């Protein structure tokens, strides 16, 4: 239970604005990135819906609306707008969204180490690196483009797999490691794509 800092009205749930006096309120302890955007806590999201809500909320919470307000309201607006932007950044990216769900479920898998033990993937990683090294050595631009394209296909497949994992109603007890492993692999493919792009760019110059 919370009381509005301004008019002391009791609030049932954390809200951006006090229902009674309309003053902006601090972010509640129970608010997460999903609830901040008014979305259910689940992996499947409608991108257009996320954008729509983000913009609607931004209109009322952005510090621009509080430039001349008293210091406390300015601070609260900055806090809320910051959290809203963070939430938007997380929820629109499937990797961040999945990692965030794992964290909310109490399994901050990436906290235990920077890389994730995935011995089966090791061999594949070396193959990618070798393909990359060969393409670079040959100055083969189209090969680099093809590598990035293949990595993008793998990413799309991983996203579908992660989505399927989250469909399982027991994911938080049974599939956490499967999801984490896929996120770790996704990061690897992201790096491949970025490296291929940089290598391609340096070929052109």
């Amino acid at each position, binding site marked *: 239970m919370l009381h509005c800092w301004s008019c002391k009205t009791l609030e049932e749930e954390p809200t951006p604005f006090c229902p009674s006096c309309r003053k902006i309120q601090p972010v509640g302890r129970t608010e997460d990135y999903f609830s901040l955007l008014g979305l259910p806590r689940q992996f499947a999201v409608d991108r257009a819906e996320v954008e729509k809500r983000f913009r609607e909320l931004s209109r009322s919470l952005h510090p621009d609306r509080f430039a001349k307000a008293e210091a406390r309201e300015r601070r609260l607006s900055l806090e809320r707008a910051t959290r809203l932007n963070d939430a938007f950044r997380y929820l629109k990216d499937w990797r961040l969204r999945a990692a965030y769900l794992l964290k909310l479920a109490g399994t901050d898998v990436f*906290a235990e180490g920077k890389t994730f033990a995935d011995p089966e993937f090791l061999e594949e990683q070396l193959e990618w690196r070798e393909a990359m090294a060969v393409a670079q050595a040959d100055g083969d631009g189209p090969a680099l483009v093809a590598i990035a394209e293949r990595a993008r296909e793998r990413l799309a497949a991983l996203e579908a797999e992660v989505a399927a994992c989250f469909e399982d109603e027991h994911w938080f007890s049974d599939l956490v490691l499967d999801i984490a492993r896929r996120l770790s692999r996704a990061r690897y493919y992201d790096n491949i794509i970025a490296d291929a792009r940089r290598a391609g760019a340096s070929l052109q110059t």
Partner: protein
Amino acid sequence: MPRAIGIDLGTTNSLVALVDERNRPQVLPVDEGRPLLPSAVFYAPDGAVEVGAAARRLAPERPVDTILSVKRFMGRGPGDIRPEDRGIYRFDESGAVVRLEVGGGARKVTPIEVSAEILRRLRRHAADALGEAPGGCVITVPAYFDDAQRQATKDAGRLAGLDVLRLLNEPTAAALAYGLDKRAQGTFAVYDLGGGTFDVSILRLDAGVFEVLSTGGDTHLGGDDFDRVLARKLLAEGLAQRIEDPSPGVLRATVAAAQRIRETLTTEEAVEAEVELPEGLRLTVRLTRAELEALIQPVVDRTTGPTRDALRDARVAKVDGVVLVGGATRTPLVRRHVRELFGQEPLTDLDPDTVVALGAAVQADALERGGREDVLLLDVIPLSLGVEMMGGVVEKIILRNSTIPASATQGFTTYADGQTGMVVHVVQGERELARDCRSLARFTLKGIPPMPAGIARVEISYAVDADGILQVSARELTTGIEQRIQVKPTYGLTEDEVEQMLVESIEHAEEDVSERFLREWRVEGDRIVSALETAFGMDGELLTPAERARIEEKIAGLREAMAGSDFLAVKAWIESVDAATKEFAERRMNKHIAKAMSGHRVVEFADQPPATGSKDSDLESGEGG
């Protein structure tokens, strides 16, 4: 209610605008009846200060005491100023901030003070026009300004007695003026080539929301560079007798002549002129537009890279319109270049000199009135913010092009046993190594209780406000010790500027990446070797001599690989050590769990790498999807 004002604090010219009673943004006449106030400040030996056209006229005669293009020095520390920008000024770089010696050497002023003179003058004119002191104010900055440059600009505003409501990125301001004027919808590019800076931003305009998707640029590229290359040619070819080392006065006068010639060639095909220079020198000029264009082509070409990068970062292949901003975009060659870059005719309905100030006025007015229902600006940070890690590599905490305000927190741990302090080095830029990024601040988190390496949990939080200015705090979680700093840059770049950093981050990308991996894996190798040595000391009895020998053999291999330069080899050996010690780790785990059920965590050296950086932001380095 007092009326808010918008200020375009430009490299060459500055302007002030406001929204009038009929709700239209207007620029105010400032200098001798014109809206453009030359960004020139003259300091007389007697302490008098002259600003604007009058100061600019004094420049050839009093070159050292007349500061032009002061914007290039904003937020720069000693050793930060580029050689070509130093020009003829005398710098005092003994303190933390650069000072310029003016007034015949009688006075030392910081770039912030010089800018404040310009702002003060604009404020006075606004007050005259309004008949009262203006209310809040919005000052525009290049989107590509880093934290230090933004801070400096805000400080200048405060120094001039302005209530700075917000710093606004110049291209965003232009888009605001343009979008509202034309009721535009869709994806737009703003190509802003001013006197000294180049910015390009990609924005999405939708139902009054101006969302910046990406931004790029070069804080050292602009019309000034055109003048500089032209002046060099004029001095080399236009004098009856070549002079080896032209005086500051001659240089200034030549640059001023170059500017006039360039402007003439915007409309004329050729120029023939005789220019009187100080010291009885005479410049004979005969130049065609084609010759000028050949000369400045390389400068114009430097806008291509940042533009392509911005389009790529925004993930758009095509835009619905291109808005031109900045006096240098009047140059026919620049327009042709933009047309080729974007495959379409740029929009030129609004005056490129005033559009930024008009946008600033609109935003100032909105802020003063508590925001507008119909307009929302969502801007981004131009450069990633990170922290230096073990081995000098940068861990990015907030990625560039993140919508502001933004925040992010990252967990770190201690590297050595009993470590009680941790140096937090805050950097900005895209390069992999801290020494190649702009250093913003460095502080030490003290009072971490002595614990074995890797146990302490330190959280570093970055928060960027709506002006793009950073605040950093660090917290040790087991004791709750917290340190908070507003990032006030102590020193700046070595020589590279932000722009240089970006260019280099692309050029050196590969070298960086493998160097980064190598450092990281070496650090990891060190950690494993020392953890194993500790473990041998504590629990050596858990191994048979043969098992021990096999592990030692692997360690020797790892050490050898670490001395080399192939990170893949280091990585492979680490994995091999891990495999060889797995059994040992399990035995130790069992022994310690049996011994103490108190919940102490055993060092799991057979596990994968260290808890140096964590999770969320690691993932964030990927492409959004």
